């Protein structure tokens, strides 16, 4: 019973998950609804500037990789996270989704970061390539659907 409630709670957690390289080129994008993917991609793209600015203006304390809410529109909220190697993770959620709190978003990013670290450990993955790893995809899709 408890599990079921959790399922409902976590369903449709995020709309889109994206990984952007340190050169600001997309390395992985997956979204829940293909029809609004382009719009979301535009929004993520436009949020990169802000992330760059944040990195430049030098947060002294780089221990917190979570950047928080980057941009919100009528439909979407975009959250950012940046690794120490300046690889950016983006999670887009529905603006009307009021159930998700900061901690949940942080948890998503942590999961994503772990998956990314695992990917980097794979000797067959060339850093900088588009991410096609099945495991990573599984994690990312899990974040989208909340069934992780």
């Amino acid at each position, binding site marked *: 019973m408890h599990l079921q409630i959790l399922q409902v709670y976590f369903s449709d957690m995020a709309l889109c998950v994206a990984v952007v390289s340190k050169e600001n080129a997309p390395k992985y994008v997956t979204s829940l609804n293909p029809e609004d993917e382009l719009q979301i991609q*535009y929004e993520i793209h*436009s949020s990169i500037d802000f992330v760059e600015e944040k990195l430049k203006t030098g947060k002294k304390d780089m221990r917190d990789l979570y950047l928080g809410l980057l941009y919100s529109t009528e439909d979407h909220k975009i959250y950012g996270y940046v690794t120490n190697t300046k690889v950016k993770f983006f999670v887009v959620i529905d603006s009307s989704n009021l159930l998700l709190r900061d901690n949940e978003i942080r948890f998503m990013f942590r999961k994503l970061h772990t998956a990314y670290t695992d990917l980097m450990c794979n000797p067959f993955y060339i850093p900088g390539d588009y991410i096609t790893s099945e495991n990573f995809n599984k994690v990312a899709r899990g974040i989208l659907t909340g069934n992780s």
Partner: protein
Amino acid sequence: MRSSVSAILSTPTQDPNMSHPDYEMTVYDHGTLLILVKHLGEELSSKNFNRLFERICRINQLRVVDGTGTERCVQARYIKEYPVGNNDWGDFQTHRRLLGLITVSKCKLQVELNEICRLHESLKVKYQSTLYDSRCIIFGVNAPNSPELSTPSNFKSRDVYYASDNDPNPSIEMHLNEFLSSLFWVLDAKRLEKSKEKFDKATLLIAPFEKRNIIGLDMESRANKKRCMGRVTKHLADLNLQTGFLNDALNFYQTAIDTLRSCNDWLWLGGCLEGLCATSLMILQPQNQQTKSNFQRNASLQERHSRFKFRPLSTNTGFVSLDDNVVRSTMPQNLLSVDDIYKNYGEALKHYSKYLNAGVVLTEGSLKAARIAVDHHHFIHVHYFLQNVLPVNLTLTDEEKIQRLMKLAELYSEIGFHRKASFFQWLASKRYVSASNPHTSWEQCYQLLLKMLPGHKLSLDPNDYVTGGQFGWPELQRQVVNEIVLAAKRVGNASLATRHCTFLLQTMWWMMDKIERSAYATQLSVLSAQCEGSPVPLVLDNGLVIPPANLLNIPQPENFSVQNLKLHLRPHKLVKAKEDFGPFLFTPLKFGSMEKYNIKSNKMEYVWVIDEPCEVILELSNPLNFELEVTNILLLTNGAVFESIPFSINLPPEISYQNVVLTGIPKEVGEIEINGYSTHTLGVKSNCRLKNITNVPETTYNVQVIPSMPILEAFILDSKNDNISNVTLFAGESLDYNLKISNIGSISIDLLEISIESTIEHSLKNSIIKVDTENIKDYLPIIPKSEIVLGIHLTGALNFLSSNQYPLAELNSLKSSLTISGPSSYPSLPSPRQRNERLSPMTASSYRSGESSLNSNCSRYRSPTDITSLKVIEFNIKIKYAGGEGMAAGYCRIISCTLSLNISNSVLVTGWDVLQAETGSQFYLVLDVVNVTNQEMELKYATNKSILMEEKESYRIPVPVDRFLIHSLEQVSSGEEGQADMVSQCNKHIAEQVLLRWSVNSYDDLPPRWGVAKLYGLTLCPQMLDIVCTSPIYWEINLNEEKIVSECDEKLLSETSQYPVGQQLKLQIWVHNSLMSPLDDVTLELNFYQDYLNGTTNNQLGNRLATTGSTKTYTTRVNEHDRLYHECSVIFFYPGQYKLNLQCQTLKQHIWKLIPPLQLDITAE
């Protein structure tokens, strides 16, 4: 959240009046006097009006000294349009009040003047509530050199007249200063008036939308009183700010904030906070100090150009540093620092956002705050402030929405957030063409889309594009370009649409899949149907240049190879550079190799000839799923003039590696640089440069073009003038052909050299083929369209000896018939095995000495039946020729005719031996011959002697041959060398002597073919040599003092002389050495025997005769022309016929006999 709060605090109905935000507003505008400058009438051109407006705008500051002696700074803000609704907010923020009005117009007639005056007055009425003063500037009347007209009676405004709108009249500035100061004094008076009022008696100031809310409010309540007081204080602060009392304003704002905060008057509190921020900023950084530095942040777009970014860390340029204690001390205590300004502004905006009707104030406030942050380069704050703008719910027309988006984009790009800027530009572009927009403008949309390219790290120049998605967001880039194509198409500019679509196909090819590629290609062909694309820059009306784009991938080039001229047309250097035949040295050290590798020459090793077609092979693939018609494929060259010949091809769907031969003709001597090719496909002309094609490693190919050269043609013709290249000859046969050389070019040939190349050995080649080149010089020069004919002689030189020689052991059966005397007198043949052993070294050496190639072929004859195999020899007749300018430049051409010659065996000698003939001057060469042709053959082997041979049949023929005169040799030595020398001499002798003339009847009516077989290379053992050669000695014999044999003279007839039995016969024997050299170790031996003429001889005559003296003698040396003398006697006991065999052994193994043996008939007495 925000909307819910605003719904509570204000009525949901919108006030339509205040809904036009001024996006240009800055915080400094809080301290300005607002003046409307209006253009009236049609007479004045808007260009002139704008010029004048700019002039007016410059007079925006005025310093006046008031009664107390303090200098006051008056600032003005001029605008062209002002909605009355905004004016109504003047109570809320006094800088929104329109205080002054200036109209500008021009007229000539009274009617026009009247109309202008009317309009001016009506404007005054429109802004009546706030207007203090107005000016009406009119050009063209009531001035010197212009008509005098009078204003209507109801015109009460101050009118200023000028003659011409073009003439810059300095008095305008003066008038404006006066006007400005008049406004200021009125305002200052108002301020004084307000400041003297009792705050508690003040009426409630309200924002326009609050009118409804106050109905029913208890105006006398304590809270309301407080609110009233707070608002008035704020109003006073505003006035102080406008009239230049900044410090007072600061204090009043502070008071008002405290008051209003306590009574939760959020909107006015927001206004106060904003005013406080504005005042603080004006004190911290007066507007005239504000540097207008267009500080362009190093945008991330430029990152890839400049890796090392420089960005000043101090962000407060032109700004009074707060850290400076001295400055700090002079500042008011309640002054806000920049960070506090952000904080307070943020709070103000938060309060504004609680009111649905305060949208304009909120929007303007956000932009104002953002501008402060921009000036201080606090980009993150800019972002936070701007983020508030878009969600503000305002009823705006599409045009205004676009304006808002554009303003956001502008601010974002100002701080280097190009991605953000392009995002808003994208939204704006969509708004321009949205279905709800009644004024759809694709043109505007297109222009906006072009502007957003930098944000996506795109440029319209394909050369700037980096494939692979390392920069920018590939998916969005494609989307943007796609939208540009669409917009250009909708604008109706087909050439632009084609260009953009070509760009899309060129640069983003890598990210498309097969179907998309075909779809885009189809789209392009539809677009280009309206306007053909060509690789030239397009210039837009606004001066933007769109660089050319090329279809590099349609068709996709796979390979590009520049071709040498055809083999027979290739120019060669007349004088060959010295070839390096030295040893090949290798060193792993590379001295100075770095420089060498950098200067890599793309120059081809070969040359092209002027005016002669040359080729480049291009391999193309069609990546599309429909048939691709590619026309006009041309080579692109630089340097020397080159005429490229267009080529067209239809590429079937998805075909790969289709060869296309591009031809062209060099028209000038020099160097041609081939740097690409051009195509025309899908209605687009493209220049595909090699540097852009990844499949081709080189960026250019350079080919030298040399001056013109002659061309000739050569054929080998037979007697019927048929061109031949294949000749079959029987061994020993000879044929003649002609070599026809014709000059088919237009340049006469001055040099002609003919050489023959083949794999066979030189001397053999000369014996097989011969070209009459002796008088070749006489033919030169060969003028164009003429020809010469040279003879070619072919001989079927082939070894007639089969490699399967086998000993003629059975010849022994013939022996008896041919020999006359007993077996011991005959040089015995060695046993087959013995003979093979002896011959083998010699055979090998003789084979090696020249005809190796033939003999190697011969060696294939394993069995006697395999002897019909023929030999094929390829001859390459090389004709080297030159002439004209090409020859002067040091080039020649080489044409070669190949002649393949099949030589088949005719007669094959499979075995041979020698036999003594009946006479001493001749011997028989016994040959086993085989007719290896397929026809019957007649073989004539001696005078009057011929034999008909069936095909493949072996025959044995005796050929009488004159013996080799051994004394013709200068020296006969007993050594090995002498032996070999003698053998070769004998061989030569036999080859010269024996001519086997064979003839074969052809199948057709052709004349019979014939040839002569010569027996070179017969191997002879020493015993055979003795027969082949004449004896080196002469015999001279006296019997009983009577000369019976003397070979020195003419041959005596050997009469059988009769001698009585029992009588002593005295034999005197002289052995003459006829050689030029001495003979060593000469042994003479006499041997009597009886021949029964039935094949048996009897050598055992011990009891039939007796000899006196030795029958054997030895001497160590017989000198040349000397002789050996021996004497002995013999007595025969019985009558009968006896024979005497005289043999002389010398040179170790040679035995020479007296031939025929001496015959003695002994008769009974």
